[in-house]
């Protein structure tokens, strides 16, 4: 390619009047090879999930049973919802460490309203509003408080919301949740053939599907969604193009907080209670899910499918190791390994992309 490049030195005038050619006739071999490699890397996270499922279905007889699949879906629901919220934040180069504490606080508030008022509507509204307000405070502190990184306000919120949840509940689980919440968090539909009336498919998975659809619609269809990716891709360019960067940033923390409220409802339903520690460490699952799923921590890149894939990898890993009777502590070690593998795939992808770029520069005729 050096020869071809040098040949141009002597003939710059040939380019005069020719089309500004963007490399639509590249050198076939290297170009195609890189394209295939990049496609394979993008398929990395789903491939990890498929591999896990295949290995576990061979290793365990019950793994693919409807009952167990239902269990995995139910166990993954909270992580999925939290991960979808976290995704929006991560796409803008941010992080929300407070979603676990936010979940606990929202669940406590929801359960208290149900206990004291007896209104399902009020209880649900209170849980969702609590999550949203916590997110709003995160966003405003970060943007208006000019804090250097969202790590700071959300770390502060992690401890503050957790403390408030413990204070309000007197460090005790508040028993009881509205029936509709119990149905959402613990209900099952679609009975197993020959298994009686009890269904296998958790209603919580339907909630996940609904949330995923809405987030997809927002990120793909709405101008707001485009702005989220634009801000994540280049905050400076977003400012220059008249995108309301500050509002966009606040909005993703609000959305993430609202989804922590939704996750709180699922958690309340699962245990028919509001516990001040029910969301402890859930933020780590949510962040791990987004990263494992293939969203870039550098911002601007990541989809709903990425987040769901990551959440399912974590849930399947836990469920599988359980079924195989392996020490539960290995789950955490395995999750750590998967995080590193997933991010390493992302790093390799970055290298290949820059190779791809330089190839484009020299391979055009």
């Amino acid at each position, binding site marked *: 390619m050096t020869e071809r490049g040098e040949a141009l030195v002597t003939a710059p005038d040939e380019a005069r009047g*020719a089309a*500004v050619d*963007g490399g639509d006739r590249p050198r076939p071999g290297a170009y195609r090879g890189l394209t295939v490699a990049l496609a394979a890397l993008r398929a990395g996270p789903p491939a990890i999930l498929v591999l896990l499922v295949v290995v576990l279905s061979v290793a365990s007889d019950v793994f693919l049973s409807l009952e167990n699949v239902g269990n995995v879906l139910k166990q993954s629901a909270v992580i999925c919802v939290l991960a979808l919220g976290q995704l929006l934040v991560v796409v803008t180069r941010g992080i929300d460490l407070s979603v676990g504490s936010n979940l606990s606080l929202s669940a406590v508030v929801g359960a208290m309203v149900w206990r004291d008022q007896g209104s399902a509507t009020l209880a649900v509204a209170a849980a969702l509003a609590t999550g949203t307000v916590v997110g709003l405070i995160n966003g405003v502190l970060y943007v208006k408080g000019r804090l250097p990184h969202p790590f700071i306000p959300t770390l502060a919120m992690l401890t503050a919301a957790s403390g408030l949840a413990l204070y309000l509940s007197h460090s005790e689980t508040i028993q009881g949740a509205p029936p509709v919440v119990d149905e959402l968090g613990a209900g099952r539909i679609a009975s197993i053939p020959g298994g009686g009336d009890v269904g296998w498919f958790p209603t919580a998975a339907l909630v996940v599907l609904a949330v995923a659809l809405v987030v997809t619609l927002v990120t793909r269809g709405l101008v707001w969604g485009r702005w989220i*990716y634009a801000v994540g*891709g280049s905050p400076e360019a977003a400012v220059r193009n008249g995108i309301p960067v500050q509002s966009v940033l606040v909005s993703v923390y609000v959305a993430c907080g609202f989804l922590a409220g939704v996750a709180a409802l699922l958690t309340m339903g699962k245990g028919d209670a509001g516990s001040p520690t029910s969301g402890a460490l859930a933020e780590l699952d949510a962040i791990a899910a987004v990263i494992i799923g293939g969203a870039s921590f550098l911002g*601007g890149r990541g989809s709903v499918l990425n987040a769901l894939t990551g959440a399912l990898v974590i849930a399947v890993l836990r469920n599988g190791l359980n079924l195989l009777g392996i020490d539960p502590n290995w789950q955490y070690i395995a999750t750590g390994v998967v995080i590193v593998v997933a991010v390493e795939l992302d790093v390799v992808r970055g290298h290949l992309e820059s190779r791809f*770029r330089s190839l484009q520069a020299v391979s055009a005729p």
Partner: protein
Amino acid sequence: MTAPVESSVATRPVLEVRDAAKRFGAVVALDGVTFDVGPGEVLALLGDNGAGKSTLIKAISGVHRLDSGSVTLDGLDITSATAMTVRSHGVETVYQDLALFDNLDPAANFFAGRELAGPAWLPRGLRFMSHRRMAERTAELLDRLQVRLPDLDAAVALMSGGQRQAVAVARAVAFSSRLVILDEPTAALGLRESARVLDLVRRLKDDGVAVILISHSMDHVMAVADRALVLRRGRAVGQTVPTAENHGQLVAWIVGAADGLTV
């Protein structure tokens, strides 16, 4: 007026800068610079580092405000207009960093911040984007500028330096531009890609867009510019048609080895 007197006065200039002066503290950045750019004209802005080129283009694009003097666009005084106002009047500046969204495709880059979406009664952020209309407009525009990209759906991150420059320039002219200011568009590019960008500049010219080109490459200036204006220490020290014969004169003006004609 049936018979044009002189070819140079046949059309009214797009941009008129008169006695532009700007100082930063004790440093005189611009000291009475006067020049015009006509429609379809490529004006090269030459000068050593610190000659005042950047200050001048920032004064035109509304980033800096002149201490005295005036900037007129199509007869409209934009001397004290803000950057957003100047842009809305059709002056687009492509800075060296391009300000592209690497993670988005060309169409998303073109329409960033001005997405085609509806319905109009909703707040801007809650409108549904019309992906098809944006893709069509993008394809039309790239076609008009004869910019060929391998994949219109690929993120800009996957494109070469020249392709990215082409996308940035195309974005600049996408919205009925009158004047495009290019700051070192070929500085980071190889020969082949530089040639493509220079072609693009010629096409802007053919479209009647006025272009101000900052470049350190005398070859590129000679290849596309109709006129070259040399700045030195904030003053316009010379102006001529950049040809091989004038090359020595231009260099002399740039380094200050000879007194040029003041404009």
